């Protein structure tokens, strides 16, 4: 046996290694058999790749909503069939899946819980032929034909939370750190307006490459030297965990508050109890919300999934609202025609995990919760009721 390495170079090694890693995120597709009379919903959620940890709860919540709708006769008398499709790969892959769902499956409607780059690819592919409901927290301003957004906007997250920190905590200086893609940039552009309105100033703003193996020692050292009152975080997933652990590891958590705009239950588990002091999150839903509506929702979720139920969070439950709003929208419009659906969407009321919600300008006004982290739990310190989306579509 020989351990020789003749016949290949480092050049080819790197190329093949990169190709191997790229293949690692290739999507897996589900091919359900066609059946007549079903109302088919293409459900785009991350099933592969690093965001796939949000997949199980999204799928479970969507299935729960579909069960409930089907028990009451489905949509226009047709039972819902969910076609869960991977949106965890590159946007172009999701676009290809959408084409297949439209041509082969004749999907009646799309629901998406994924990043904004994928949304833009799907909007360009679906072209408003069927309704497309985009559910997660996002940067606002999505107004394409026959597209409906349910998620938290900067006006709902950043405006009230920065106002509160400026008032209650006398915050004056802010440092912005985010991943380098559309959501953090647009959210921070809005946040800077609200910071200026509150009389504060921005002492630093930086972005780290999205999807790269980031480390944060240098960033945290810079923040330590800038000494802001608040760090506004628009990092997502592993970057968010990594930054917060490094931040607390350097001992900055004692003196500097952190306000994160995509900090949900999974991410907080990763941040961990010893790194979550003085950390705030502003979202439209926390799983420990004690309201009657959420208690009822959680009981149904638990009954369906038992002890193995995936951790609930604002992203997962947005898919529940996605299916519920699809039901109301198509029922009210008596079909999936773009113009009729757009007209029907104004003032449309539908159920969510935390109670009824109403659509205005194809966005959703909602109650927002500002929570201070206590260990790995969210402790709501302030509720802002009926916060406008601030990005209502004109028509």
């Amino acid at each position, binding site marked *: 046996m*020989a351990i020789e*390495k003749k016949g290949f170079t480092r050049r080819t*090694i790197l190329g093949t290694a990169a190709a191997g890693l790229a293949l*690692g995120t290739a999507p897996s597709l589900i091919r359900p058999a066609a059946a007549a009379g079903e109302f088919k919903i293409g459900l785009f959620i991350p099933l592969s790749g690093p965001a796939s940890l949000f997949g199980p709860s999204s799928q479970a919540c969507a299935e729960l909503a579909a069960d409930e709708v089907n028990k009451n006769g489905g949509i226009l008398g047709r039972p819902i069939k969910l076609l869960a499709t991977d949106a965890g790969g590159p946007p172009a892959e999701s676009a290809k899946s959408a084409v297949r769902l439209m041509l082969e499956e004749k999907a009646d409607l799309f629901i998406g819980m994924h990043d904004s780059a994928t949304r833009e690819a799907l909007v360009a592919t679906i072209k408003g032929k069927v309704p497309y409901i985009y559910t997660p927290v996002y940067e606002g301003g999505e107004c394409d034909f026959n597209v409906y957004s349910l998620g938290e906007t900067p006006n709902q997250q950043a405006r009230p939370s920065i106002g509160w920190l400026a008032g209650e905590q006398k915050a004056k200086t802010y440092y912005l750190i985010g991943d380098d893609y559309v959501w953090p940039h647009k959210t921070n552009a809005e946040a800077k307006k609200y910071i200026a309105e509150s009389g504060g100033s921005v002492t630093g703003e930086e972005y780290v490459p999205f999807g790269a193996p980031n*480390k944060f020692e240098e960033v945290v050292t810079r923040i330590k030297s800038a000494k802001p009152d608040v760090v506004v975080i628009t990092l997502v997933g592993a970057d968010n*965990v*990594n930054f917060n652990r490094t931040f607390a590891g350097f001992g900055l958590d004692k003196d500097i508050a952190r306000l994160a705009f995509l900090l949900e239950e999974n991410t907080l*588990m990763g941040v961990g109890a010893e790194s979550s002091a003085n950390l705030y999150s502003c979202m439209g839903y926390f799983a420990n919300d004690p309201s009657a509506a959420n208690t009822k929702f959680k009981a149904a979720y638990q009954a369906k999934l038992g002890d193995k139920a995936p951790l609930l969070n604002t992203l997962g439950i947005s898919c529940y609202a996605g299916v519920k709003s699809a039901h109301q929208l198509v029922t009210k419009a008596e079909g999936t025609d773009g113009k009729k659906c757009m007209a029907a969407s104004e003032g449309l009321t539908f159920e969510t995990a935390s109670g009824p919600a109403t659509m205005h300008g194809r966005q959703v006004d909602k109650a927002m919760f500002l929570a201070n982290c206590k260990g790995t739990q969210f402790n709501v310190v302030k509720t802002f009721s009926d916060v406008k989306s601030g990005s209502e579509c004109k028509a």
Partner: protein
Amino acid sequence: MDPLIVTQAINVVYAVSILAVLALGLAVIFGLLGVLNIAHGEFIMIGAYCAYVTESRGWPYLVAVPLTLAVCSLLGAAVEWIMIRRLYRRPFDTLVATWGLSLLLRKIAEAFFGPGFRSVTIPLPGTIKFLGTEYPIYRLMLIVVSLAVVSVLVIWYGRSRTGSRIRAMVNNPELAQAQGISVRRLAAATFVVGTCLAGFAGVMVAPLVPVQPFMGLDYVLRSFFVLIVGGLGSVSGLLSGAVVIGGFDSVISAVTDAANGYFAVLVLAILFLWLRPRGIVARA
């Protein structure tokens, strides 16, 4: 001196030393055996989960070290026996095989622990005054441990009998076999040492990063960069690779921002592949 500059300087030393340890297991498996171990990151991930299990069982943190060594040596031996043994002369086949292995290991981790983030408490929390600036104790300790691990390995590889047998095997397997060295067994042992080193690196970084099935992807590419830039089969190659990749990334991230640091790493890797494909320290 300005505490900002001092802290950033320690950050550079930290980045270099942690990268050397993270790449060490791959340096053994790829550098000595020529196996393109794409699953290197997954062995780091397994080490990190061993740290998580240790903590969640309430055992002292150091228990994670023997636990990881046990898990990674059993797993490494099984993988070598079932898969790698048949592929030593076929580097591209090792790449495809270990890529499949990496998917499998990720799915196994997901089956055991779920897809979500886990966090491991830092065993030595807090900061300490060092060179006039507050720096996290655990990170300072990691610098020391990294240097110790690399030095021990250098001395062992250079001085021990097994080290000289491995050198003989790497330089000329047929001749080594003719001299009565069981190349098959030695290669298997070398592979296991590589997987154990990866697992050990995982235990070291676990308290600093999110522990999740995908975490290995963060380390495998950078480890390959270190070896490409530094050169295969020598400790000086590993160290110079870690200094160049980790150092450039950290210095440029400190002076400008993280995006430029990452960009610099990619440019460096491309330049080396283009102009100096055998790396800084090319083996004779």
